[in-house]
């Protein structure tokens, strides 16, 4: 089947099988390799992207659900100012070790930042937001520290991207 969708703001059209995974389409057809495959089972969050402005696991989204969808991946967010601030906070707090989980954590961080306007955030709330992300290196504490720091910085994240 042929599907039309928007990826990082660009209208694209692609030939797929109904149950092909969004993850493979992004990586293999569009070379958007910032989005990673960890578990392929919805557990680790390395494949996290926005689909129609909602955070999803791209390993669980079948191609047949993508007709007219708006998909935003980590590669499409690099040039935003808020992204640079997030990346700096992760670096400064030692929140990146092997880096494999990082794109997924950053996507969840962006979702959290744009949903909450308050300047402070409890650790429980950060942990809830990361329930779908696994990191095997950092022990999470450093990632949580980075997020706590980001919340003090009053960062502006748009409610929608490329819409």
């Amino acid at each position, binding site marked *: *089947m042929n599907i039309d969708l928007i990826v990082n703001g660009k209208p694209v059209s692609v030939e797929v*099988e*109904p*149950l*092909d*995974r969004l993850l493979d389409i992004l990586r293999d057809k569009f070379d958007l390799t910032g989005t990673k495959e960890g578990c392929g*089972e*919805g*557990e680790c*969050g390395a494949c*996290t992207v926005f689909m129609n402005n*909602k*955070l*999803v*696991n791209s*390993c*669980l*989204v*079948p191609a*047949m*659900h993508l*007709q007219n969808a708006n998909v935003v991946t980590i590669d499409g967010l690099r040039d935003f100012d808020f992204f640079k601030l997030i990346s700096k906070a992760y670096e400064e707090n030692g929140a990146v070790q092997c880096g494999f989980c990082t794109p997924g954590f950053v996507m*969840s961080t962006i*979702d959290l930042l744009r949903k909450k306007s308050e300047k402070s955030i409890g650790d429980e709330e950060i*942990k*809830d*937001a*990361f*329930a*779908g*992300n696994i990191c095997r290196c950092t022990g999470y504490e450093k990632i949580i520290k980075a997020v706590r720091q980001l919340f003090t910085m009053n960062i502006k994240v748009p409610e929608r991207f490329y819409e």
Partner: protein
Amino acid sequence: MNSMQCYSPNTLDEYQKIYSGIAEKNILVFSGGTDLMIGRHELSQDAIIIDISGIAELKGVEKKENKIFIGSCTTLNELLYSHKIQNDIPILIKAIKTMASEQIRNRATIGGNIGNASPAGDTITPLVVLEASIQIYSPESNEVKTIPLEALFSGPCASTLQNGEIITKIIIPLFEDKDIFCYFRKIGQRNAMTITKASLSAIAKYSDSKIEWIKLAPGSVSPVVKRMSKTEEFLQGKKLTPAVINESKEIIGKEISPITDIRSTKAFRVLITKNLLADCLSELINRH
């Protein structure tokens, strides 16, 4: 993977037409896909996928005549953020908050959780204590029937749905009385993102230091989710003394029929279910 046939109807009417046009009724109903995508390589290659996630009639929450109607393709996060559900069915909110992750809850549907018929399905035990019923649409007869949710399950991950039948709505009767105690707790490997080893849903009416009535449904400890009628009857009208709580734990321990599997042993599941009941009853006392 070979080319699989797939259809994406926008209305139930279209669903019926597609169904009528298929000779071999080897239909796979597909909703959010969070269960189905994981096993996609094991799906039969000649299965015909009908993706119901685009059917508008199957989405959203409505309140009518003291009942809540939930469309089967409503996602878990849509329910979590629905004011109607927050105010009227707090036990369902408690359960959904423990489920999976933001990413999954944005995709997973309540109809899929029920359709999967897992004894570990976390929306099922709250719905069973609420005495929810479900509407089932049959494309064969083009009719809708309503059955109690409990009657849907025929075994672990097995339902009585016939080929092509879909759950269209979940119907939850509301209480006139707003002072109803509700409890949901699940025990898994860890706090976040965990498959239930054992869980307990309960609602109860407590007055004059006595249990007027209580409804209990544990998860993951029987082939199908069901109410604990013996334990409920025992507790009815009782004051919650330590002796009564202990006896109720023994009764529920005998009423469930857990198995040993990769996630837990039978003995451990009995122990946690008893302790969940004790936890529920002590919370009930402390609230009043």
